[in-house]
């Protein structure tokens, strides 16, 4: 317990940083992932190709390599200089968006094709159909897998440890510098993550209950 109480400030700052990384990346990846899913079901073959290519590349690349790219390779391109923290957000968002895309797309596939046909028959455009009819129904069936994807994102934020971005994953380094018991410290980090994940599980239950509409 003393490991935690002696370094409470460190733990709080680190987990706050983790939460911030998570929150920003979650919003960005949800937006981008949903957009990519729309591309993948679009009637335009080129759009579908772009969506598929994105998912293939980002989903098949280890997250660490995505980080390496944005922290070391991207700066060499000398486009826009970005801070390591921003690079971490970008890496996490782009990587997670590929998974969000596939989750949303699987949700879209659960919506009966008649829903889209009825929309088209009424004169709705593709974007109107997706936004008003298909996505609202698709998102209901993706709450559990989407929660899993978000939990994975929350834990993936620790990959930033290897790239000098301060967050919960770097608590160990600080503790070891101070000669604290590192193993006990890590145990507290693990408990911290469990505490952070629990609200996500709760949110999942709330949404599942609210959106459980009979078909």
């Amino acid at each position, binding site marked *: 317990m003393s490991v935690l109480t002696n370094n409470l400030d460190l733990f709080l700052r680190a987990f706050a940083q983790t939460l911030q990384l998570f929150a920003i990346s979650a919003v960005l990846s949800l937006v981008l992932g949903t957009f990519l899913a729309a591309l993948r079901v679009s009637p335009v073959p080129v759009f579908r190709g772009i969506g598929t290519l994105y998912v293939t590349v980002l989903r098949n690349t280890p997250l660490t390599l995505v980080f390496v790219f944005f922290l070391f390779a991207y700066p060499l391109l000398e486009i826009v200089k970005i801070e390591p923290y921003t690079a971490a957000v970008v890496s996490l968002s782009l990587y997670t968006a590929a998974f969000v895309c596939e989750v949303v797309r699987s949700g879209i596939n659960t919506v009966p094709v*008649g*829903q889209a*046909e*009825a*929309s088209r028959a*009424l*004169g709705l455009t593709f974007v109107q159909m997706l936004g008003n009819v298909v996505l609202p129904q698709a998102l209901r069936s993706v709450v559990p897998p989407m929660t899993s994807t978000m939990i994975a994102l929350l834990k993936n934020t620790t990959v930033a440890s290897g790239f000098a971005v301060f967050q919960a994953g770097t608590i160990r380094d600080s503790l070891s510098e101070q000669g604290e018991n590192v193993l006990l410290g890590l145990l507290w980090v693990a408990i911290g993550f469990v505490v952070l994940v629990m609200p996500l599980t709760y949110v999942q239950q709330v949404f599942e209950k609210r959106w459980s*509409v009979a078909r």
Partner: protein
Amino acid sequence: MTAASAPPMIRVAGVDKFFGPLHVLKNVQLEVPKGQVVVVLGPSGSGKSTLCRTINRLEPIDSGVIEVDGQPLPAEGKELARLRADVGMVFQSFNLFAHKTIVENVMLAPTKVRKTPAAEARKTAMELLERVGIANQADKFPAQLSGGQQQRAAIARALAMKPKVMLFDEPTSALDPEMVQEVLDVMTGLAKDGMTMLVVTHEMGFARKAADRVIFMSDGEVVEDSTPEEFFSAPKSNRAKDFLGKILTH
């Protein structure tokens, strides 16, 4: 029928359609003048549903011409969406939007496609629901309604766009027998009001009572095109005789 010079509401000329090697529409010719009610009959697999779905391009065709109100069907895109807004369609499986209430189902397309203000759209929607007899179900979700009520809601949803023509793709085939009549009554009412209708159905009673013309299809071809009296009392082709023999004897 109106002035002879006006273009027909629907013109289908030389239309062919394949599903892979299967030739489902064979050189189909059909004209539906404004205000006419045309019932399409035929055994299952004869292509009548496909024909109905090609008219608003839910099924693209391989060759031939389809015109709605003198306008050839455009390719997929904004133009086609505009045309579809003027063509009402009622499906066998209702296809009401499962996450919206009945009144929201009816309001959606007018507000999104026609940009009608919500209050006005709601008022029109309630009038239409009144007309099809389910105004008291307006705030329920589709799954809470019976099949007959759902199909009437679907008709109201199509009518909300003030379509020039209505397509019915086997509107009563998925209904329990006791609910068929309530849907047919709504359709008969529409026909009496002068709506141009193309109805794919197995309801011979409706064809007799409400149709101006009967089209008989078999194996992807239009085999007969006559009045209901003529078709039911004196079918010309053997395929029609065979078909009527099967359904009228039991």
